[in-house]
């Protein structure tokens, strides 16, 4: 843990975004995670993405469960709303928050323990219902907070710090999200902000549940030889299918995509997720092909990254459930609480 505050230095050359805020204005408290933790890089990528998009921090709600990953909302956007919930229950809280106020920009931060073990059921239903949340899984393949046991995403054959080999199968959150009917499934690496920051922006713009599985190495318990979630292994085995970029509505109108190298995915708000194909054969709108692609690379022990599946047309949970269009806080008391007569009228139909 660092004892000093990160200096608030106003140096020449510091830039401001459209709101007049600097990158530093999107930070939170100083991290108490281990030095070198991938999660801190994810935090930095989130700060960068929100600053780039000039989102007002008070529009945002940060949600998390339990674990190293779930501590990280404290380290970004100190001006945002937030709730650090029960282990694995971040999706339920996010569902409630969005039901009450669909205008909130919800960022759920979870880990492989929080989402793929204790919270796997919650994860599945958030994806299936297309809850409008940016769902980041900081995936390090290990239970760091309880000192290095294998997690549900540890690859079979990978080794723990003391040499023990994992024999159980691994859950791939990206493949799971796709099979669960997810509308946005991506993978990235904490050590590659050039890929991660645009993916986060695309996830924020995507209407629905944007799952980004971020390989985020645990320097303390899972960065050794034999680990398949270490910095070195990830760098050596990752294979980017494409590079995403978010083009705002004003610019999207002018853009042309005739070269066949770039795949534009239009969103309802007029913005475009621009995918530069690194693998010319890959089509992230083809669900069967995506699963096949993931499987063949898994078998070859390769880590596929990029925006791997997207369907921007799916309705979100708010649309499906027909929740109130305006936040509950903006209703008058009488509207929210029509009184016992109205209740009696409603109950008549239930008898």
């Amino acid at each position, binding site marked *: 843990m660092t004892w000093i505050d990160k200096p608030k230095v106003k140096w020449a050359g510091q830039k401001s975004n459209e709101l007049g805020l600097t990158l530093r204005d999107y930070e939170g408290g100083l991290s108490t995670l281990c030095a070198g933790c991938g999660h801190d890089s994810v935090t*930095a990528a989130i700060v960068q993405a929100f600053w780039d998009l000039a989102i007002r921090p008070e529009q945002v709600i940060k949600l998390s469960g339990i674990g190293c990953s779930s501590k990280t909302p404290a380290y970004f956007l100190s001006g945002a709303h937030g709730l650090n919930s029960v282990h694995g229950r971040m999706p339920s809280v996010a569902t409630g928050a969005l039901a009450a106020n669909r205008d909130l920009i919800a960022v759920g931060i979870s880990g492989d323990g929080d989402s793929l073990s204790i919270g796997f059921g919650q994860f599945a239903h958030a994806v299936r219902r297309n809850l409008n949340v940016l769902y980041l899984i900081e995936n390090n393949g290990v239970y760091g907070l309880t000192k290095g046991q294998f997690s549900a995403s540890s690859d079979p054959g990978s080794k723990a710090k003391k040499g023990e080999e994992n024999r159980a199968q691994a859950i791939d959150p990206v493949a799971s999200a796709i099979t669960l009917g997810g509308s946005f499934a991506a993978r990235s690496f904490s050590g590659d902000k050039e890929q991660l920051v645009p993916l986060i922006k695309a996830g924020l713009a995507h209407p629905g549940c944007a799952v980004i599985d971020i390989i985020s190495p645990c320097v303390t318990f899972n960065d050794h030889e034999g680990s398949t979630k270490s910095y070195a292994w990830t760098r050596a085995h990752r294979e980017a299918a494409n590079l995403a970029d978010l083009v705002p509505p004003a610019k999207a109108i002018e853009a042309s995509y005739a070269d066949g190298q770039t795949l534009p995915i239009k969103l309802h708000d007029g913005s475009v997720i621009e995918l530069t194909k690194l693998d010319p054969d890959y089509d992230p709108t083809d669900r069967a092909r995506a699963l096949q692609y993931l499987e063949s690379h898994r078998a070859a022990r390769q880590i596929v990254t990029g925006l791997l599946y997207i369907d921007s047309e799916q309705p979100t949970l708010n649309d499906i459930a027909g929740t109130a269009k305006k936040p509950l806080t903006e209703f008058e008391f009488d509207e929210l609480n029509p009184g016992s007569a109205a209740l009696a009228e409603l109950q008549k139909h239930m008898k």
Partner: protein
Amino acid sequence: MKPTDTSDPDYFHRVVDCQWGCPAHTDVPEYIRLIAQGEFTDAYMVNRESNVFPGILGRVCDRPCEPVCRRARIDEKPVAICRLKRVAADHKEDIRERLPIIPEKKNGKKIALVGAGCASLTVCNDLMPLGYECAVFEALPVPGGLMRSNIPAFRLPAEVLDEEIDYITDMGVDLRLNSPIESMKALLDEGYDAIFVGSGAPKGKELDIPGRQEGKDNIHIGIEWLESVAFGHIKKIGRKVLIIGVGNTAMDCCRTSLRLGADDVKVMARKPRGFFKASDWELEDAEEELVEIVINHSPKSFVVEDGRLKGMIFEVMEYDIEDGKITDTRVVDETFIEADDVILAIGQETAFPWIERDIGIEFNEWDEPEVDRTTYQSTLPGVFFGGDAAFGPENIIWAVEHGHQAAISIHNQVHGKSVDDRLPDTMNLSSRKMGIHEWSYSNSFEPAARRKMEHVPLSERFKNLGTEVELGFNAEQTACEVERCLNCDIQTVFTDELCIECDACVDICPTQCLTITENGEEDELRQRLTAPADNLDQALFVSGGLEQTGRIMVKDENVCVHCGLCAERCPTAAWDMQKSLLEIGYAADHDVTPCPIRKTG
């Protein structure tokens, strides 16, 4: 770019902007830390090693360190380095027993020094501990040179001057006061092993315009007038005084005038602000005393009526200025300004009427001696120049550095070694790591603004010529100001092989000065860093190829606040905070004699 060679002492030295900017390379961050710990005597001694006169310089140094201070690139005002130096000098204990022991048995080498100013005294300071016999010839009845004669006592009290000069003369210097040297030839014939000329630049420049002769009783040459005031020969001046010129001497002249009875003092500048030679703080101090600085007035003539000076006629100028440079000049008007006295402070130059031109000391076209910029030797081996005498008027701190360098040359010369045989600077690095997140320096950033020096009230300060205007920092001001120092000598040292490219340092850096990226040419690389590195005066640190991706770590030194967070957040200690200690070779470090065989056992 090629990987940065941090084994070159200049690399880390440049990072310590103040030390690099100081001609004598004073270890500023080190003495500021010592002041922070209340170790004033130690802080004074760190200063004394390089600049010899901390008490004097803590008041009147031209502060080349401050404009370059990194802090000035962060919150506009640099650390008050000079004022802190004075704190160390004012609060130190007796330092006499820390001064070098002067050997009783001399080395048989006799040096003559002309002028008892800061350059000559520095040579004595460096050579006396080595067993030299130094004879200093001074024309005036007191030592100190321009520090005594040209800097008014309200800026530099005589006690401070006496104390620091005494430290040197008490080493056994043969100080011959009232002994002007009339002939270099005669001095050479006296058989000294070496001669050092530190006679300053004693000739004030003239202003030959109509009326100069007629009005001469009330027209004074700045440095001569200041000297007369310093020695009590002049005690008053007229009510209305014009100062011609706007350098630091002009500032001393105008403020001195106010203390001798003037109440309407104007400093007449030919050019607009921004072209003044005076230091900003000296201008501020003068304006605080209600001196009027009149710009764009070029002297045309003195007006003398009935043998008495009435004032001056000035041409009113207009300038076209582009990018801070004057591109065109016009006279737009003429004006008369009343004056009882006029002081000319338009510069000064060296004068060597006493050096014969046929003895082997060459002079250049401006009648200045040919002096080597490294060895300070003239064209006559064994004769050295330093201070203002060498290259014209500079500042005390430059003269001190000249003295150090000349002392090395003299030491070599008299022992039959080449004067060019000089030790290079070396750099020592040692980690400041104390624990997992503890460093043996104050790495927390102090956001406070520069502390303001308190002055004696205007109503008090004119009563006595010797009343020192600046009160010095009090304890609270000192405690705050020392923390403003960014500890630039606590270097960020990177070890390529240890880096796992986790980005922790890049993410934590409060000023975005780190980047891990592909290598490239410097111009292009500077633009694609986390924050563009637009300050080309500041170096980029570039690592070798990193193990996992072959990319490089780049650090823009420009606005690094040396908080150490990169090192704290580094899981592999690839970054470490290490103090750089510059080892400068002085005369004593230049071994000129074979090591004597010592008895053992």
